[in-house]
């Protein structure tokens, strides 16, 4: 992956995919929400999973990070099946990815620095000042170094999401999964977060898998999107968001991108 490339589309075809979802069927509370879908994510791209409410976006994400077991199919992360991997191997795979949850999921009783430092304390033998320096670097990257002594409850929602990203990337994962990063944020904070994601993807070659339905964010960050449709429980569209908006043959997809009300 060349550093600082502006678009991954041209290089993508020459690369091996970093994540492969193969014929996955997923059920949530007994009912099938995703039926036999396949797609691939390539290194360094910002890959966005789209869909209306209840289309199974978050469910799909939770399958990709190994929290849920699919009913059928395989999910390969860096060529290793996260579904069938043995316990230890699975832990290794999970440590190679980072996840930032919708509400941040920062530990409320720890300061931001302690939150970010936690994976280092558990997984490495670094001396304390090394852990602090690395944690400060990650917090500085998301613009929160000055808030390292604050508790999550003392900072705003946007800051919490940024801190969650810092925590997710403290072990330098190759892949970051973000669940609705801009939901509930004001447009400026949301745009700043988009910049952060783009910066990390372009400068650090981190692959992003993002679940969102915030249109401005999608246009700003997405290299490629897939759209899930709860009517068919399938992927109904794949491609660049601008192209789908202007050229999709599916009226629902065009409606989605143009924020139109569906006409019965």
């Amino acid at each position: 992956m060349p550093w600082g490339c502006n678009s991954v589309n041209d290089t993508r075809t020459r690369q091996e995919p970093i994540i492969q979802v193969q014929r996955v069927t997923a059920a949530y509370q007994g009912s099938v929400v995703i039926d036999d879908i396949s797609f691939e994510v390539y290194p360094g791209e910002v890959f966005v999973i789209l869909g209306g409410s209840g289309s199974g976006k978050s469910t799909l994400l939770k399958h990709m990070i190994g929290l849920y077991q699919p009913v059928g199919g395989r999910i390969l992360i860096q060529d290793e099946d996260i579904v069938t991997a043995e316990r230890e191997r699975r832990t290794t795979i999970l440590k190679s990815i980072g996840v930032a949850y919708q509400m941040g999921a920062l530990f409320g009783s720890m300061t931001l620095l302690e939150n970010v430092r936690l994976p280092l304390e558990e997984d490495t033998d670094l001396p304390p000042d090394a852990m602090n320096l690395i944690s400060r670097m990650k917090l500085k990257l998301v613009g929160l170094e000055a808030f390292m002594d604050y508790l999550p409850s003392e900072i705003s929602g946007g800051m919490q999401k940024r801190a969650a990203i810092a925590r997710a990337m403290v072990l330098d994962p190759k892949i970051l999964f973000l669940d609705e990063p801009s939901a509930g944020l004001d447009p400026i904070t949301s745009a700043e977060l988009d910049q952060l994601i783009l910066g990390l993807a372009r400068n650090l070659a981190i692959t992003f898998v993002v679940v969102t339905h915030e249109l401005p964010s999608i246009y700003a960050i997405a290299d490629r999107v897939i759209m899930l449709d709860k009517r068919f429980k399938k992927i109904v569209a794949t491609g660049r968001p601008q192209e789908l908006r202007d050229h999709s043959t599916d009226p629902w997809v065009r409606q989605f991108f143009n924020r139109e009300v569906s006409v019965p």
Partner: protein
Amino acid sequence: MATAASVHQAGSFETRISNDRATLTLLLTGRLDANTTGRLWREAQHIFEQSKPIRVVIDASEVSYCDGAGVAFIVKLQQYQARTGGDVTIHGLQEEFRRLLGIYGQISIDPPPGRRREPLSVVEQVGHAALGVWQDVQTLLTFVGELTVTLLRAARHPRLVRWSDAWLTAERAGVDALPIIALIGFLLGLILAFQSAIPMRRFGAEIFVANLIGVSMLREMGPLITAIILAGRSGSAFAAELGTMKVREEIDALTTMGLEPVRFLVVPRVLAAVTMTPFLAVFANLFGLIGGAVVMRSLGFPLVSYVNQIVSAVTVSDLLGGLFKSLVYGIVVAGIGCLRGLQTTTGASAVGQSTTSAVVSGIVLIAIVDGVFAVVYYALGL
């Protein structure tokens, strides 16, 4: 550039010190990541402290991989030199890693000034604690006032009370507590009787064990253990439930809907607890007496003697006095549980703190109320 052999090799370094001991050359090789730099970090620190070089030359041409942790290691060396007035030159670091150093290397040597204040002196701590207690007393008085007014209004307009909630709470705090109340009451009666029977036997006064069990259970122990179990079981549950509602902004939602949290949430719980505590105390008394009976039977006394002895020893005022105390305990425990729930701040640990505080404050208040009752009953000659 990294050789093929060094790609998967763990990070390591070799050092070379110039003849004048001013220049330290550090040859870094292999992977510099979070798993391998821990050892390097310690070794390098040791070497730097020993040799105190003026100039450091880092040869990074054999570094095969470098992530945030590797960059932090290099930055740390730079910072060490900056602090001691020396300098660092880096050679041969691959472009992609150099770029990473550019991104992460902007970090200042010292962390930004923390917001944590200096630790307080003992005098200040005592002052803070005293102020906290005073504020707590004020809050408690305000809450008691608000609860009293709301309860009086509820008495005038019973339709204002959410009876469905009150019934549900009565079942959870009352009926569901019966097994544990019965068990503890029985064990307490059993133990009291057994412990007192041994010394009393020396005076041939074993039959007076019945007096002791009767008076102590009915006047004191029955209501007291009921209240303590209520504090542990239901006071904590009220605090956790209301605390979670506070964290999830449900209390704010009630307020903005014009529904007072005290009327909507506290009154049904207090009413349920007040109604159920005397009943639970009756069961605690009963099972305490049964526990005593078991011991007395095993000592060879017929059941009828035990019962007659108790009937002659305790009066109705002993029973009613105890039950009235339990009623007040019920108000205190439910009230403080709800108050602590409503006082919950934000965050997951806040609910835990409220719950702990509800149980601790509940037990402290039970002890205070018990003391007040002892004095009042004594003054009244009861």
